């Protein structure tokens, strides 16, 4: 079944030229095309890497023009041989502003922050797919991705990111959760149908959410809910993405929690992969510092047993990276796959302790909902009542009552839990851990804002980039002089 052919999609697809959607191949035609491609699917690559203990690498990459996109993919593959490649979709397309995407594409393709696949059409998608050896994933941020999904499948693309929560709350203002959850249920059902045609689509869940100071249990709880919905709808391969927060023990604990959660909450037989996004918050601006963080992220992925790592570049703080920077980011991250680094380990005792708390918090959040007969309804209600929540929501559908902070070691905790249904033990631990940072009780709004800003700018501060009159323009020697002691930034502590 093609998602765009279901009746409920009618109203939406009115905004799209008919020619485009009617000419789409059927799922069985797409399945045959995919089989004929003779390249591995994303799910196969992920399983292969997981079996070999290699962290698969994948860049973000998307530019507006088709020829430019071809060049970008071909160069990335030639120079860095990532295990998987990406079509990052522009933000007009994500929000179904297809007209704006098309206009910009025709007037100034370089003004697009991604590849407008729907505007280009599935034939061009196939052209991209055939150009390269690595399987492609569509990375976007569409609350309603049904048309995009159909075009992707028609292009022979075997990995598709998103979810009804994770591609709504960070990515739009006014799309009701019930709507995005239903739209994604259609996508997931289509994956189920494709599986019957022999094509396993890797469905990656965007646990990264709003990316900035996302507490691990929030990220993982939402992924669990999306994964349960997806597998119930027929999805057979789930990648659970988690954003590097920057505290090694916490990040490793979160990654290592993913197989445990899968075991606990997902049907047997579903393939589940842990995915790490290299640091998703405010990036350092100096190349060396950014590269330190990139390597650190890649090591976290290795130590956490991730199947895949989504890479960043040293240009992250500035804008969409150029190809050379993207290649450099992939190459650097690949060092963490080095067979020479087996001696690099993490304190397993601390990881286990942290992991226990994460799993308990996730249980507090998801278990009451999983018992409900209608999980979509339960999720919508929970967000409305603040029993689920995310910080810094772009959407009105989440309250953003929870306020994250970093504790004295840099781990992300809850300063304010809002209405999250955490057991008292969890609340006490959070309070204790943040006690050292702001003192007891609720801090004043000024202290809170200053502290929060410091936590957001954590790595820039750690590298002393954001101190007044400190050499943001004097890399190398001088910066390292300042950053020799890797302590958390004193300013935002007490």
């Amino acid at each position, binding site marked *: 079944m093609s998602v765009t052919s279901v009746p409920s999609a009618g109203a939406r697809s009115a905004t799209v030229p008919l020619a485009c959607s009617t000419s789409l191949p059927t799922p069985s035609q797409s399945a045959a095309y995919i089989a004929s491609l003779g390249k591995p699917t994303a799910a196969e690559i992920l399983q292969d890497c997981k079996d070999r203990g290699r962290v698969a690498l994948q860049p973000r990459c998307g530019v507006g023009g088709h020829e430019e996109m071809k060049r970008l993919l071909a160069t990335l593959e030639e120079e860095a041989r990532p295990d998987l490649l990406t079509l990052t979709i522009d933000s007009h397309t994500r929000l179904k502003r297809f007209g704006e995407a098309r206009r910009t594409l025709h007037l100034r393709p370089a003004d697009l922050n991604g590849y407008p696949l729907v505007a280009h059409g599935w034939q061009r998608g196939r052209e991209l797919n055939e150009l390269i050896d690595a399987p492609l994933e569509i990375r976007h941020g569409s609350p309603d991705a049904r048309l995009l999904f159909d075009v992707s499948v028609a292009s022979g693309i075997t990995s598709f990111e998103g979810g009804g929560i994770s591609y709504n709350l960070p990515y*739009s203002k*006014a799309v009701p959760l019930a709507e995005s959850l239903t739209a994604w249920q259609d996508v997931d059902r289509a994956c189920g149908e494709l599986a019957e045609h022999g094509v396993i689509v890797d469905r990656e869940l965007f646990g990264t959410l709003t990316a900035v100071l996302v507490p691990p249990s929030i990220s993982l709880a939402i992924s669990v809910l999306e994964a349960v919905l997806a597998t119930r709808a027929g999805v057979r391969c789930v990648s659970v993405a988690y954003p590097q927060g920057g505290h090694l023990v916490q990040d490793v604990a979160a990654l290592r929690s993913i197989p445990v959660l899968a075991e606990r909450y997902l049907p047997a037989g579903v393939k589940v992969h842990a995915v790490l996004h290299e640091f998703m918050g405010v990036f350092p601006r100096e190349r060396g510092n950014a590269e330190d963080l990139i390597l650190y992220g890649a090591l976290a992925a290795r130590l956490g047993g991730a199947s895949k790592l989504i890479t960043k570049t040293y240009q992250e703080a500035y*804008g969409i990276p150029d190809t050379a920077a993207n290649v450099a980011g992939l190459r650097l991250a690949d060092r963490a796959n080095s067979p020479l680094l087996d001696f690099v380990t993490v304190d397993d005792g601390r990881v286990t302790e942290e992991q226990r708390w994460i799993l308990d918090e996730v249980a507090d959040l998801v278990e009451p909902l999983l018992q409900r007969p209608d999980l979509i309804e339960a999720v919508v209600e929970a967000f409305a009542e603040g029993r689920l929540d995310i910080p810094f929501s772009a959407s*009105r559908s989440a309250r953003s009552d929870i306020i994250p902070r970093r504790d004295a070691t840099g781990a992300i905790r809850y300063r304010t839990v809002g209405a999250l249904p955490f057991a008292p033990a969890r609340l006490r631990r959070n309070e204790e851990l943040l006690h050292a940072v702001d003192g007891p009780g609720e801090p004043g*709004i000024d202290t809170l*804002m200053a502290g929060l*800003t410091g936590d957001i700018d954590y790595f820039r501060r750690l590298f002393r980039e954001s101190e007044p009159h400190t050499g943001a323009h004097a890399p190398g020697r001088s910066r390292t002089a300042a950053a020799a002691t890797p302590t958390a930034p004193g300013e935002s502590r007490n």
Partner: protein
Amino acid sequence: MRTLPNQHSAPPTVVLGVAASDSHAVANHLIAHSLRGLGYHVINLGTCTTVEEFAEACEQYPHAEAVVIGSLNGHVHEDLRGLDQAKRSGRITCPVVVGGNLSVGSHKDASAHDRLYAAGVDHILADAAELPRLLDRLRLEGRGARLTDLAAS
């Protein structure tokens, strides 16, 4: 904390939001918080706000001192299409301030700013921290302008 000069009068109003295709929320949350902390009445339209929504808010809050628009995703040019028209038709009368990451790519040049000025933007800031000072200046200039209006009438 810096506060507004005339706390006794009605708090000054600003219309705040993020451009139409852009869902980056963090800076928007922080700017709203900090302007409120400084005593502003902030009409925060949040992320993904079209020019039409900004214009409607201006009509609803005619005393708004400025429309403050953030954009990080590089799409500000397409997203502000129609701003010029909204100003010319008198739907937006106060100054329009834009800040964030104003073009696609890691290599920036001045042309992005030129294009924005041509599209009806009045002020461009690099850092949200500069916002209070600019708003102060605009208020002074605005008062000056109003005085001039009075003198001329």
